[in-house]
Structures are given as C-alpha cells and as structure tokens.
C-alpha cells in the first residue's frame, strides 16, 4: 500500500510528488507513460518558463530538469513507460508497463496530474478533404523539436494560442514559410510576448476574426481557405482568401485529460473541464487530488508548479492525519491573461512596444524625439531597459535544436546563453546546422562558443 500514487510525471506530477515527500510522505509512487520525466516540457524548448517561480528565464527542458533533479533527491519511486489505465473509487490504480507488467497498486491517496490534450480538427469540424498535413501544433512541436522532422514547408496556423504562436516561429526558424496565423476571435489568446517574438519578429500576419473554412488537397494539403467571421463567429461569404500551403497547424484549445477521473466517478467541473476541486485540490473522492492542466488549463507552468505543490502538501496532510479530509472551500481559478496588445508601431519618434520581459506584457511608449529617451507605461524598471534595447538594438535569446549522436533523441535542445541581435538570428540558425553533439550531453554544456561573433555561446538545455 502506497501513501501516494502520482499519475503523470510532467511539471504537475513532479512538483506534487516532491511536495508530498517534503511534507513527510515516504511511500510515494509516480507513474509516467513516457520513457522519461518532464512531460510536455521536453518538447517546449523555447524560453519564458520560470519567470515567476524561479525569477529567471528558462526553457521547458531546463524548467523540468530542476524538478527532475529535486525528485531524484527524494525516495519517490518512479515507473517510466507505464500507463495508468484505471483508478477505482477504492483507490486502486491499474497500470501497465513494458517492463513492469500489469499491476494493480493500492494507495492511501492519489494525485491526478495527467495534463491536457489538444482540440483537434474534428472537434471544430473544419470542412474539406482529409489529407495529410493537418496536425495539432503540439504534434508538430514533437516532430520538430524531439524527432527532428519538419512536417511541412508552407504552413497556415489556425488559432493564436501560445503553442500555435511558438510553432509559427519554430517552423520559420527551421526553414518553413508560415503564411499566416488565423484567429477566430477579435483578439489573440496568446501571451503578448509570443505575439511579438513569434509573429512580428518574422512578419507573420495575424488575421483576427478569421477562420479556416475549407481544406483542399487529396493526399496532402494543397490549399487552405480562410474567411472573415462576423460578430457571432460565422464566416462571411465573399471574404475568402486562398493560401497555397502544404500544412495546417491547429492551436485551437486544450482540454484537461480526464478519462481516468470520469471513470472513477469523480465529480467534474463543467467550467474547467477538470475535476471539481476544493481549495486544497481535493476532488469529490476523498484522498484523490487533481492538479496542473488535468485540473484546469494553465497559461504558465509556474502556476502549475505552485498549485501542484499545494496538492502534494494536501495529500501528505490527508495521509498523515489518518486519511481525513480537510475542511476546504471550493477553489477559484484566476486565469492570468495578458493585457490586450493594441497597435504597436512608430508614430512621430514615439515607438509603441509590448514589453516581453515577463508575461504581463506591459504596453510601453518609448519617446526618442529630440534625441532623448523616455519610457512610459512600464510596470517595473526592467521595462526601461527593454524599451531602450528594443529601439536601439533589439536582441533575442535563440532557442532551437542541434543534431545529437547516441542520445535518447536525435535532437538536443539548445539556446544562446545570452540574447543576440535580432538581425543575427538567421546566421545563428545556420551555425546550428553545423553542430552535432555527442551524448552524454549535460544542461548548460557549451556546444559552440561565441556563435557568429555575437559573444553568445550555444548551450544544451537538457540532459541527453
């Protein structure tokens, strides 16, 4: 009998298991379906993670690494390549794995941390043919970042959620042409920094209040038809635009993964699509907790971490107090959404910018008229430095991959260890083509010093 079984080894499961250990639970089992821990963070090789939690900017694999290391210092038992198939109301967990076989484990408490999945073409019923080349942005991300394959050469992205924006940039950096990012709503659902750094940096048009109304092509996508929509999101006839492309990436929403939750008879929350949880993340089934994107879809992994730590701590209290549930009110979730982007651009020596230093996305006005420099609209002092750099010499941290020999994956994620001039990004990308790392590779390992004379080093962002 385990004190706790954690289902899922992504950011939520990792944080929850660590927190439960810290609070004194000793018999903890974490089941992860993949062959490695880290969950979706392993394919999120871009940066921007950890600004809240670690007060520094990390890539997805680096963020995951911190918790994987923390977990390694505990006595938590980890089963990889193991899928949980059923959770019973009696807190039996059926799981199966290549090496571990089919097992039924019992636990005093359970944490559901299965994450979420992407909405598909079927869910939004896009009409047209059904050729190859229509895929979710997350699937494309896995192909590009982990398997080293480009799923298309000319792409349209439907949905301006963060994964779609990130993939628009990734596809562009890897040599594909992204023709447009199409958003049904009159505003984007993505973070302001992603709109700036993923679309504007690469001149990818964002078509708001538009949607895909037809997919053409027999074997492979040949054309995508995009139409403007009215106030009720209905396509307006006569506004069709035809894009010749071979790929349509979908970033049309995330759905909490709750197959197991429903099967266990746990009460669901129609607002979040996850289990109904109380403030301590306990579900309607005593001793069963839910956290992370399985509970509700988060914008930032930092919030997943803190919420999951709460769940882990609550599970520990539950077990240590003799399996008695706490008095706790219903949880309320605030969805931290970035401010509306507005129109950025230059007017009479005044440059309107969106600060990308943190996810808040302050709207800055940098005034360079008369040879001076002044900034308005910044929420903190970092905004001033950002604005100054942006109007004089904009810089970006480049995140991408390099080939890797002998590792678990054919590509190793990397980043520049400091921002490089935006204008140098193509040269930096070209330089990456020439690198081939050899496993073992360690986080922070320098794979190329002083890339293209920028002074920045190319460093690995994961262990491989």
């Amino acid at each position, binding site marked *: 009998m385990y004190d706790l079984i954690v289902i899922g080894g992504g950011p939520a499961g990792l944080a929850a298991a660590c927190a439960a250990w810290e609070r004194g639970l000793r018999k903890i089992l974490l089941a992860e*379906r993949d062959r490695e821990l880290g969950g979706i963070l392993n394919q999120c090789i871009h940066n921007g993670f950890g600004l809240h939690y670690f007060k520094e900017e990390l890539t997805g694999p680096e963020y995951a690494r911190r918790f994987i290391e923390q977990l390694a210092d505990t006595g938590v038992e980890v089963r990889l390549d193991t*899928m949980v*198939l059923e959770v019973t109301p009696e807190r039996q967990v*059926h799981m*199966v*794995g*290549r*090496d*571990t*076989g*089919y097992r*039924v484990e019992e636990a005093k408490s359970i944490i559901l941390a299965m994450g979420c*999945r*992407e909405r*598909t*073409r*079927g*869910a939004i*019923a896009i*009409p*047209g*043919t*059904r*050729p*190859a*080349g229509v*895929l*979710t942005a*997350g*699937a494309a991300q*896995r*192909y*590009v970042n982990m*398997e*080293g*394959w*480009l*799923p*298309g*050469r000319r792409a349209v992205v439907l949905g301006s959620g963060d994964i779609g924006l990130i993939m628009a940039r990734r596809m562009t950096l*890897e*040599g594909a042409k992204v023709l447009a990012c199409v958003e049904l709503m009159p505003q984007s659902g993505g973070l302001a920094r992603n709109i700036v750094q993923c679309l504007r940096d690469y001149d990818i048009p964002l078509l708001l209040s538009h949607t895909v*109304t037809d997919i053409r092509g*027999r*074997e*492979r996508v040949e054309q995508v038809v995009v139409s403007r929509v009215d106030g009720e999101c209905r*396509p307006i006839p006569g506004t069709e635009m035809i894009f010749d492309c*071979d790929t349509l990436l979908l970033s049309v929403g995330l759905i909490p993964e709750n*197959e197991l939750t*429903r099967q266990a008879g746990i009460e669901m929350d129609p607002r979040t699509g996850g289990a109904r949880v109380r403030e301590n993340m306990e579900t309607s089934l005593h001793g069963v907790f839910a956290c992370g994107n399985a509970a509700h879809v988060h914008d930032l992994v930092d919030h997943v971490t803190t919420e999951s730590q709460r769940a882990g701590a609550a599970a520990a209290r539950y077990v240590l107090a003799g399996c008695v549930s706490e008095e706790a009110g219903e949880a309320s979730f605030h969805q931290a959404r970035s401010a509306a982007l507005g129109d950025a651009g230059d007017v009479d020596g005044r440059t309107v910018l969106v600060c990308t230093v943190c996810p808040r996305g302050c709207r800055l006005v940098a005034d360079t008229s008369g040879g001076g420099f002044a900034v308005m609209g910044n929420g903190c002092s970092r905004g001033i430095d950002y604005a100054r750099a942006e109007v004089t010499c904009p810089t970006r941290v480049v995140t991408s*991959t*390099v*080939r890797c*020999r002998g590792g678990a994956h*054919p*590509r190793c994620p990397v980043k520049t260890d400091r921002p490089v001039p935006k204008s140098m990004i193509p040269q930096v990308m070209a330089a*990456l*083509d*020439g690198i*081939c790392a050899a496993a073992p590779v360690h986080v922070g390992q320098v794979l190329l010093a002083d890339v293209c004379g920028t002074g920045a080093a190319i460093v690995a962002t994961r262990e491989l």
Partner: protein
Amino acid sequence: MYDVLIIGCGITGAAAAFALSRYRLSIAVLERENDVSMGATKANSAILHAGYDPEPGTLMARLNLRGVELARPLCRDLDVPYRACGSLVAAFSPEERAVLEALCERGKSNGVPGLELLTGAEARTLEPELSEAVIAALHAPSAAVCSPWEYCLALAETAVRNGADLRLETAVTGLQRTEAGWRVQTSRGTFEARFVVNAAGVSADAVHDMAAPHAFDILPVRGQYFLLDKSEGVRVSRVIFQTPTAQGKGVLVAPTVHGNLLAGPDAEPLSRCDTSTTADRLDCVRRTAQKSVPGIRFQDTIRTFAGVRAQSGRGDFILQEAEGAPGFFDLAGICSPGLSAAPAIAEYAVELLERAGLVLEEKQDFLCRRRRVRFRELSPEDRAALVERDPAYGRIVCRCETVTEGEILEALRAPIPPRSVDGVKRRVNAGMGRCQGGFCGPRVVELLARELGVSPGEVVQEGAGSRLLVCETKGGGRHV
C-alpha cells in the same frame, strides 16, 4: 493464369475472395489503393440492415436478408466487432406513420423477423433520448452494427491465408478477351485469368466498359457524417432512422461497435467521386439528427467525414455476367444495403461462376477462423498474462483507445500488413479516439518506419502521396 481475378477489394471483392478461397482455385484480388476497404467500405453507416427497406422480389431484398443471416456467424468466426443492437424507424406525422405501416408489411414479406410497430411512448421507453415529436416507430430487433473495415479486412486476410493473391496499388488499365479467358492490364503488369469479377465500387462502370459494351453508369452519391466522442456513445442503444423518403433512408443516429455515436448521412449526387465535407451539408446533418435525438452534443464531435455510395440507376444490385463479355462478371451498383448483403452477394457470385463452368472443389484445410488481441477488452488477469508473455503488450501507444505496441506489431506482421498510419488505425483503432492521433501519431509513425524498413519521411497518412513529414531539420542525417 488465375482461375478467378477479382477487381477491387472493398467489402464486395473481399467477400467474393473469401467465398472462393474455400475451393481449390487460384484467385487474385487487384486493388488500386494501398490497402483494402478504401472506398465506400471505410466510410458508411456500418449498419447490417434488418431488410424491410428493399422492394420485395429484388436482389437487394433477398441478399440483404441472406447477407445478415450469414454475417452473424461470420463476424463471430472472423473476430469482427458486431453488435446486435436493433433499429427503430421514427415517424413524426400521421403520413409518416402510414409509411411505417407499409414498411412493416414490406419487411414481413421480405421475411424480416420480429418487426413491430410502436407508439412514440413505447419507442421512448426503449430509447429515452428519442424526441418527444416521434409519434410512432418501427422496431426491427434484427438490425446490427459492425466494423465495416475490419469486416472487409478479416474477409480479405482470411482469403489470403487460404491462398488468394492480393495485389495492392495495382490499378486495372485494360481488359482483353483471350482464348482462355481474360488478359488484365494493370499499373503493375499483366495478369491472365479464366474469369474476371468486377467489384470496383464507384469505378465499376469504367471497369465494365473496358471489357464490354457500356451498360450502366455508377452515380456517386456522397453522404456526410459526424463521429462523436464515446461520452455521446451512450445517447442511443439502437440505430435510429427517420422515415425513408424518395431520397433514401435519410439521416440516422447510431451507436458504433467501438462505443462512439455516428450521425449522418445526407445524400448528395455528385458528378465525380469526392469525399470532402462541406459546412452547409454538415449543418443540415446536425439539424436533422437532432430532430430524432435532440440531446446530441455536437461539440463532442471527434471527426467529420464523407463517404460515396456507388449507386447505379437501376434501383437494384447489378450481379450478372456482362453481355458481350463471357467470363466477365459485374458485382456493381453496390450501394446500401451492400455491406449487409456482402456475403450473400459473394455466395451469389460463386453460383454465377459455377454456372459459367467454374469447377468448385472444397478444400479440406480451409481456414475460417481469425483472432486478434484486443488488449482493451481483456480482464486484468489476461492482460497481466499477456504482458508477461510479450512485453510489447505492456506499452500503450494509443491512450484514448488503449491500444498496445504489441497489437500494432501484430497487425504489421499479419497477412495484409498496413502501409499507412490510417491503415494501422483501421486494424487496431490507434488514433481513432478523441485525440485523433495527436498523441499516438508520432509513435505509430516510428513503428511503421521501423517495421517497413523506411525513413519516417516516407511514412504516409493514407494514400501513396500523403507523406506526413517533409524533411529532417538541421540538414538531416548528413553529419550524424
């Protein structure tokens, strides 16, 4: 020189091959696509009709009844998902009730068992989600649903195990009469056969015209569908039809053998075969389906698709030796109830061939049983034993449908291995669930590439040109 060469490996061609493979004959099946069941067989309502619909005296009426009688033991022996669920035809007005009465009489004269006319209230006791507007319903307890593509695959696979020669990606380009029979020219060489069976579905007219004077046209009639999540699969437990009109059986709502809900099809005559979906037609299907079952949550759709029925202008199946082409047999115009009738059409075709001089001598070693592992349906004890025996069954590849790597490998080593991601889906259900391959897609690609001995870049979604990946990043493997 083959005794019999069958053109087309949809349900009709597969059933014919299976029926003939019982005898000491050399049989070839030519299929132009890279898999079996690629036409109407993979995109239809999956229903084995009770048989009240066709006009008495027609081949359709006779073979529908006989076909579903044969289907039950056949699906059992060949391990094809089959669910005897029954069906209701709903009437919304007194005029429609009158049609149901006629349908009931027709069904009885066709020999359909157990037909009964119900009031709206009685129908709602059987199907509580049925609309309050339904005033009467015809209940046909003998209707069933099946997995059409697995049905086709099981028949074709068993025929192959019994010695039939299946040639995929082999399109027929010409047919010539020879002294001994027929010469069949294809995209992959020339074949000789004593008898040729035309089971080419929507192309049956074109194939016929290569051998004989023009005799019929196949008019593709498209139908569009919604496939809904398993959470909606419990909405009804029977097939719910609406009262048929001159346009056909209309939009139905049905449970699938896989536990999903199916709504569709409409009927739209086309000038050419086109399986794209359209917004206006889908809208219409949605509204019509909700007339029968108002509670359907279409936001839980996981896929929309369209199929094309191979309808002929004759109003009945065309099953005959073509005039002016001795030894060439048409099995054409196989629209609904073609799936229901398939094994009976095959039986009929065998009779036609025998009458034309084909000698039928039964094999002693005919194999007529097929089994495959369905991990999802096993008990915990059986699962444990299976994983113990072969750890590949311990790795779940498709989480939505609980499909293991072992099942995929088993399919890849079967008599008709899949050559595409969708081929894997039709065999083991991987990618058929609510995430539509978002999670398992890359893993299936990896397994296909490994087992087929090709690069992931050569793996296709479905047809030969439907590659999923275009090139490696970072200049590819050059430096690795």
